[in-house]
């Protein structure tokens, strides 16, 4: 391979690696041109709030996918968490209403429980992740419906007498002019990036996704790592359900339907391979931004729902096609040293 070919190929590779960022920038430019209010501070704040929903789910699911699994239950867990908190705030346990903090903790604990169930099904019972989490998708959705017999829990704003106020702060309050859900998204992403890059746990996740057998032989406690990834994904999903319930001041059992698909799309757009082992947490955040900008921008411009679905689908398919393209070029360039942005490889 001569030098010029190799250089142009590696430039191409860099562009391909940055494709999610490039798509994001392109989308922002297009929507800014089409709608004058797109780049206003107010709209960016709302846009970031909408992105945070998909981003928290996607970042939470990244470890699961990196380890070679999948979590289809996140949307249902979001619905269930909202219903648990809603029920505790408005109906209470034996008529005794809980405060906002207790309700939030209980909802996250229930989410964690579903995550543990996912992890145990996958590791101890040998159920394929797709099937295990498909099962818990139905179980969690059914449980959410059972909690209220299908009704909505309204008025989560609570009353001062009942001592249940404060729940709405989770989704509606601001810190330094930025909505709280956006802060949550940033904190969770930052923590996850650190875990992925700087801790043994993060390296183990990549190792398991890269080659599970090799990882096992290297002495990694595969089962334990996997259970943790499902737990993390589930708790993030629970948090999303709570944010939505807090924003709407009501909990609806169907909340979160098909959210798992948005989250998976964001992870894949961010360059994480569904086969596991390759990808990054930051990519998932960018992927979620692409999906969020696309959804909000198309609404602002006034594109119909049907076209919105077509366009979203096209973007996802294109992203994965480019992903395959990148993999092919990368294998042609195996002699070239790995660039700085590369994710850690499988450890021996």
């Amino acid at each position, binding site marked *: 391979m001569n030098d010029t070919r190799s250089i142009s190929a590696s430039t191409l590779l860099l562009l391909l690696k940055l494709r999610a960022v490039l798509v994001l920038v392109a989308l922002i430019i297009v929507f800014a041109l089409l709608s004058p209010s797109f780049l206003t501070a107010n709209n960016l704040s709302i846009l970031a709030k909408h992105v945070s929903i998909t981003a928290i789910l996607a970042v939470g699911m990244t470890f699961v996918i990196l380890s070679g699994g999948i979590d289809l239950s996140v949307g249902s867990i979001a619905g269930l968490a909202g219903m648990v908190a809603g029920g505790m705030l408005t109906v209470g346990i034996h008529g005794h209403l809980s405060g906002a903090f207790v309700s939030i903790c209980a909802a996250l604990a229930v989410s964690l429980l579903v995550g543990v169930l996912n992890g145990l099904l996958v590791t101890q019972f040998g159920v394929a992740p797709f099937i295990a989490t498909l099962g818990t998708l139905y179980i969690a959705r059914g449980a959410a419906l059972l909690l209220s017999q*299908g009704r909505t829990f309204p008025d989560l704003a609570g009353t001062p007498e009942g001592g249940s106020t404060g729940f709405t702060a989770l989704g509606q309050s601001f810190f330094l002019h930025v909505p709280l859900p956006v802060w949550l998204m940033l904190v969770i992403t930052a923590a996850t990036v650190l875990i992925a890059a700087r801790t043994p746990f993060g390296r183990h996740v990549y190792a398991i996704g890269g080659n599970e057998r090799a990882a096992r032989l290297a002495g990694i406690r595969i089962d334990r790592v996997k259970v943790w990834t499902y737990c993390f994904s589930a708790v993030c999903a629970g948090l999303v359900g709570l944010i939505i319930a807090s924003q709407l001041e009501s909990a609806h059992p169907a909340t979160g339907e098909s959210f798992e698909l948005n989250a998976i799309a964001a992870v894949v757009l961010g360059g994480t391979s569904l086969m596991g082992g390759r990808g990054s947490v930051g990519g998932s955040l960018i992927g979620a931004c692409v999906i969020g900008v696309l959804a909000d921008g198309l609404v602002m411009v*006034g594109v119909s729902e049907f076209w919105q679905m077509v366009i979203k689908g096209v973007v996802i398919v294109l992203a994965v096609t480019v992903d395959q393209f990148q993999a092919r070029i990368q294998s042609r360039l195996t002699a070239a040293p790995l660039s700085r942005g590369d994710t850690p490889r499988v450890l021996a």
Partner: protein
Amino acid sequence: MTFLRMTACVALVAICGCHARDTRPLIAIIVPAEDNPYFKAEADAAAARAAQLGYRTRVDVHGDDAYRQDNLVDAAIASDAKALILDNAGTDASISAVRRASRAGIAVFLMDRQINARGIAKAQIVSDNDQGARLVAGEFDRAMHATYPGKSSYAELIGRESDTNAQVRTTGFHAVLDKDPALTLAAAQSANWSQSEAFSKTETILQAHSDIRGIIAGNDTMALGAVAAVKSAGLHGIVIVGFDGSPDAIAAIKSGEMDATSLQPAVLISRMAVDEADVFLRRGFTGKPEIQIIPCDLVTRLNAGQFINFEKRQ
């Protein structure tokens, strides 16, 4: 692990074996969903009336999926149901299922939604979506003029666009609103009947069009999503109307967050369907025309106290 599996099997067998024999005739009730207050009220009212009249009932949910509805109809045939009370999964997609049920000797009574075929179902009892839409659009128009003299613009939240009722309602809205030169439609988006989708789409629409003074929604769930978005944007005096008459919307009308809604008499309709099924099963005819259209009621702050759970207080 073997122990766990065995316990699970034993539990399953025990649950299945616990069903007592019940010889009352069966009325199968199939509705689109039970996580929606409207369909829930409809299913509950039908089941309660059927039980009151001495029938055994079974409530199933097709989730607006015509294929699932097909399977549920097969299950109703297999379990020898005498009558089927159905809120169907699509005007055209449901025809074959209804035909199969009636060929199998089940008297089918449709409520809430019609099918595009006559003479197969014994009755099709529906609320007048067109009249209801015009009614609430008229009130929306009046409230917009009362609050904002002169020209003003509004946004519309449409239901799932593949759903006939979404189409009928938006057509009804526009039959009234398009005649008023003072009102401009600034944005129209589908929020798929969903509250969280209506919330985020309304937030975005309000950013793109800061001059919006009113929001008309194809159902109450979306209207309540719009209420939350308007509140979150810190706006006041936006006129919001919905459709359905859900208890949550009526509470929002009482507190002034929403202006009006069109109440579909769901409870009345499903009781009528069960009553007519009862008459048919005893006498062989209903004595009523097949298509029965029941008008909607306008609910505003003035009369909100008269309505409860899709029903006018007697």
